[in-house]
């Protein structure tokens, strides 16, 4: 039996009727056409499906859409503002932290959740924060550098503004 759910996705209220066995990942990709969130393993191992749920990064393949009722979801599509990339996205581009790009949305959201809580993370804290996000291409070093760069940029903007 379908249930009516409401949630805020990237700042917008959405309402929909879903079957209880629909995951949040399916709901975002198939019902809302937000295909930036990737479907990898479906079992919590790869982190490609990472979204931010009420401020915390989670594997959307292991959350039911009905469990997100009344909650706030941020996906990669919600990061850019007025056509400008978010500083973390820009740093990933600048530092060459993207190759095939499949892990990138999840990586960036894990990094965002980290920087929101801890604006000046150590290298170890960065590596821990992205430890549930697998990348088959980059070898992680450039991703870590991109997060460090983003932290500096975000910190700088906050001081000057």
């Amino acid at each position: 039996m379908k249930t009516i759910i409401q949630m805020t996705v990237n700042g917008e209220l959405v309402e929909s009727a879903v079957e209880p066995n629909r995951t949040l990942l399916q709901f975002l990709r198939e019902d809302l056409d937000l295909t930036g969130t990737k479907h990898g393993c479906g079992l919590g191992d790869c982190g490609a499906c990472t979204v931010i749920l009420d401020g915390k990064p989670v594997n959307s393949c292991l959350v039911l859409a009905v469990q997100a009722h009344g909650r706030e979801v941020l996906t990669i599509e919600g990061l850019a503002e007025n056509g400008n990339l978010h500083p973390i996205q820009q740093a990933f581009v600048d530092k060459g932290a993207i190759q095939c790009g499949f892990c990138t949305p999840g990586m960036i959201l894990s990094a965002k959740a980290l920087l929101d809580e801890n604006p000046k993370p150590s290298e170890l804290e960065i590596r821990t924060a992205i430890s549930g996000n697998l990348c088959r291409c980059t070898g992680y070093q450039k991703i870590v550098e991109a997060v460090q760069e983003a932290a500096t940029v975000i910190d700088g903007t906050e001081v000057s503004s």
Partner: protein
Amino acid sequence: MLLPKFEYHEPSTLQDALNLLSELGGNAKVLAGGTDLLVRMKQKIDRPSHVISIARVPGLDAIIPRNGHGVTIGGAVSAGAISRHELLNDRFLPLALAAGRLGAPMIRNRATIGGNLVNARPAADLPPPCMVLNAEFKLKSASGEREVAAVEFFRGPGEADIEPNELLVSINVETPMPWTGGSYIKLGARKTLEISMVNVAALITLQSPDGVITDARIALGAVAPTPVRAYAAEELLIGEKPTDELFERAGMTGVGLCSPITDHRGTMEYRCMMIEVLVKRSLKQAVERAKSWKP
């Protein structure tokens, strides 16, 4: 990977949750963080016709200090919340450390302590710390409630002392004595997202900063069909001055209690060697922390 169909229930009071469980019993599964249940349902290992989410039952996600005497941790508190909690890091360190090693950050934000304990996996992270802290688990059903000690709860791989109509509502722990220190060490092939090859929790109480050991508790995971307390190694420590040589003997005794298996994560021989080393190391860390205990 698709989830099979099921009926979904989302009780908003504990009484409603317990009533649903007693009506639906064997056909229903409790859904907490879903990091185990949803995986098993996708793999078609579990096929419940009803799923009862406990996420909106008030209070199950609270950590409540009992003014100095202990702490009550709700059954649906996440591993992430445990690992970040100040009091738990201060007085109940093995549990906070173990919660911080469970899975990866995204898993920790969903995975609950209740789910981890009821799962009863031999290599799970949270049973050993609960066992050294002498935790008591409160189980409730529509018809009553009971408490089970952590050391009695685990029966076999995937089997725990809980009925299908019962909910694990809280974990109760008494505050350890002064001059107590704890530790938790998990050995896997990688740092994160790794099921333990061996995990050890230890709790040591000293008579005074440079006195003898008055209480010692050691629990081992992934070395037998259930997590086990290493009672023989504990007895050897009590009444003695902490020394490296003593810890070495305790480690050797610890190995004797285990029946590890060989699998893709490690061989039996390697596991036995690691038990010895990790028991020794965890005792050393616990004693160091006991010496620097602060009121």
